[in-house]
């Protein structure tokens, strides 16, 4: 595969605050690559640098072998679908889509033909003469995509384009974007904070946090072999525990020694252990490798979400079996459901399901502190 964009050692600060810290990323021709991370992780800034709206403080942006740090946005062969579409309200649908062609002084009949083609690609053939302000969110989205694609850019940048759409429409648009990407063969660089969206659409996912790339890989790699506790927590649900590698294929956590499929760690090396909630089996207390008390059960439709207290650590388990609150149960885990990760700066920050969000965590902590003071 051919590299189309290379980001080399990119750093950027806003008002003294580092938003990108030595980013190195290769983007290949024809791929659907997603920059995934929580807000403030630097994913949008990375996108804006490729688009030409931000300059890196350090590092090089290479586009098809050429350094383009100083090339202004309008001279880059890259187009953007903006977060809130940024359609021109003074132009109708046709003229919005024709906008880049008119700038290039393309002949009239060619514009007519290309815009018509493009509008049918995004299923808006009957909307050419409509005002963009009269369109629904999904339709505006389609206009924005058509407008960005019509000049046949090498790379299409999409900045959380589906964020404003409702769930069903978003699912449809995910499918459709994927289809358009396949049909046009244009490289898509997609920014989102929605891990599910990233998993379903991407060829490659780049997980970012605090201005650094945490992991680059296929959706399956990222889900099954998370590099550290941040990635494990951000992609899907994870129970993340402190463990110690006893020897190859043997790991100790939650006061039990488990068989696992990982090797190559130093003897007695402290590690983070990830167990996905859907990989835990519930058995009777006697048969379980781990024993605990159910503290809550939530019906989720397809499955129950069960929180189990095991020696003070709250596990999340997804199961189709019904258990009751306060029931004593046993858990068993297959060796290949146990993922071992090196310790990182994110160790200990995630993976306990006492609460789901950091915000509630912090509030609870404050509460406890103020109680302690009294």
């Amino acid at each position, binding site marked *: 595969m051919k590299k189309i964009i290379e980001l080399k050692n990119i750093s950027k600060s806003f008002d003294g605050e580092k938003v990108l810290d030595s980013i190195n990323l290769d983007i290949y021709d024809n791929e659907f690559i997603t920059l995934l991370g929580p807000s403030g992780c630097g994913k949008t800034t990375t996108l804006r640098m490729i*688009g*030409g*709206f931000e300059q890196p403080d350090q590092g090089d942006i290479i586009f098809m072998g050429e350094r383009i740090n100083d090339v*202004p*946005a*309008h001279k880059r062969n*890259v*187009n*953007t679908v*903006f*977060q*809130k579409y*940024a*359609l*021109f*309200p*003074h*132009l*109708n*649908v046709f*003229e919005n889509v024709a*906008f*880049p062609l*008119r*700038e*290039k002084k393309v002949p009239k009949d060619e514009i007519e033909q290309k815009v018509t083609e493009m509008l049918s690609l995004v299923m808006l053939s009957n909307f050419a*003469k*409509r*005002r963009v302000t*009269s369109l629904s969110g999904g339709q505006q989205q389609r206009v924005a995509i058509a*407008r*960005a694609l019509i*000049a046949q850019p090498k790379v299409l940048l999409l900045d959380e384009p589906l964020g404003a759409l409702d769930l069903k429409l978003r699912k449809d648009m995910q499918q459709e974007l994927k289809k358009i990407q396949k049909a046009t063969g244009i490289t898509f660089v997609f920014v989102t904070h929605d891990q599910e969206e990233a998993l379903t659409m991407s060829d490659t996912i780049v997980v970012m946090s605090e201005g650094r790339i945490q992991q680059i890989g296929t959706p399956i790699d990222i889900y099954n072999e998370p590099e550290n506790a941040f990635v494990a927590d951000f992609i899907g649900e994870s129970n993340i525990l402190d463990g110690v590698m006893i020897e190859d294929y043997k790991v100790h956590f939650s006061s039990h020694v488990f068989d696992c499929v990982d090797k190559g760690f130093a003897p007695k090396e402290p590690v983070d252990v990830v167990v996905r909630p859907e990989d835990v089996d519930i058995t009777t207390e006697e048969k379980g490798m781990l024993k605990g008390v159910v503290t809550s059960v939530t019906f989720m439709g397809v499955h129950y979400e069960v929180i189990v207290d095991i020696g003070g650590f709250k596990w999340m388990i997804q199961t189709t079996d019904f258990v009751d609150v306060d029931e004593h149960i046993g858990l068993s885990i297959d060796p290949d459901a146990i993922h071992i990760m090196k310790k990182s700066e994110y160790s200990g920050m995630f993976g306990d399901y006492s609460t789901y969000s950091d915000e509630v965590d912090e509030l609870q902590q404050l509460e406890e502190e103020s109680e302690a003071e009294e």
Partner: protein
Amino acid sequence: MPQGRRPSAGLLAPYSIWAALFIVVPLVFVAYYAFTDNSFAFTFDNISRFFTATSVVDGQEVRTYMLIFWRSLKLAFISTIICLLFGYPLAYIMARSSEKAQKIMMTLIMIPMWMNFLIRTYAWMTILQDTGILNGLITAIGLRTVHIIGTESAVVIGMVYDYFPYMVLPIYSIMAKMDIKLIEAAKDLGCNNVSTLRRVIFPLSLPGVLSGITMVLIPSVSTFYISQKLGNGKFFLIGDAIEGQFVANNLHFAAAMAFILMVILLVMMAAMKYFTNRQVYGGSEA
């Protein structure tokens, strides 16, 4: 009302009464006086006098009031265009400046408006006089004095100075609200700075330009004080004519002129509004 809730009639009443008493009734009176003679009998004489009255200027017979009217319109257009040429870039620069700079510039534009406009006009007299401040400066650097006071230029300077803020403020307020993403989108789609301005920023700022033009053109067409003080009374404008007839107690003819001026301005504004609406909201559904 976007929420579909209409304010109750009771709340609107004071404003309706105000509008009726101080806007509608006076307009009706203007129209009534315009179409009546001194004994309040219906007549077209006042109206036709405006279009047909003649006098001799420089040995030539001219239609007096048409001449005055065209002169007023010409000077008002020149002032409006000058205001637009200077006001538009200023508004653009202001809207793109830091918040602090915006506040400072806004205050600087507003300060002259806190002063009475008679005083402002007198100030311009002392500046522009043949022995005034401007000529003082010019002679100080060794150039020949210029004669400005009593020329059309002096009247235009006075108008531009007085009405400039009314051009800048509406354009600025629409530019400041403009979504920066639209400008980024234009650049993303291949526009350089000039074509971004031409194809996106300017069309979107047209409503502000339109209200700026309205707010400068109308008072400059009908001004009378500025022309008397800075034009040395040599450039009789339509406002002067109306004032003169009014002072001479020719109320009916004064009303007729005011009425005609109003109708012409209304037609001009309507035409301009129609034109910009088509520009701003393209498409057949507009």
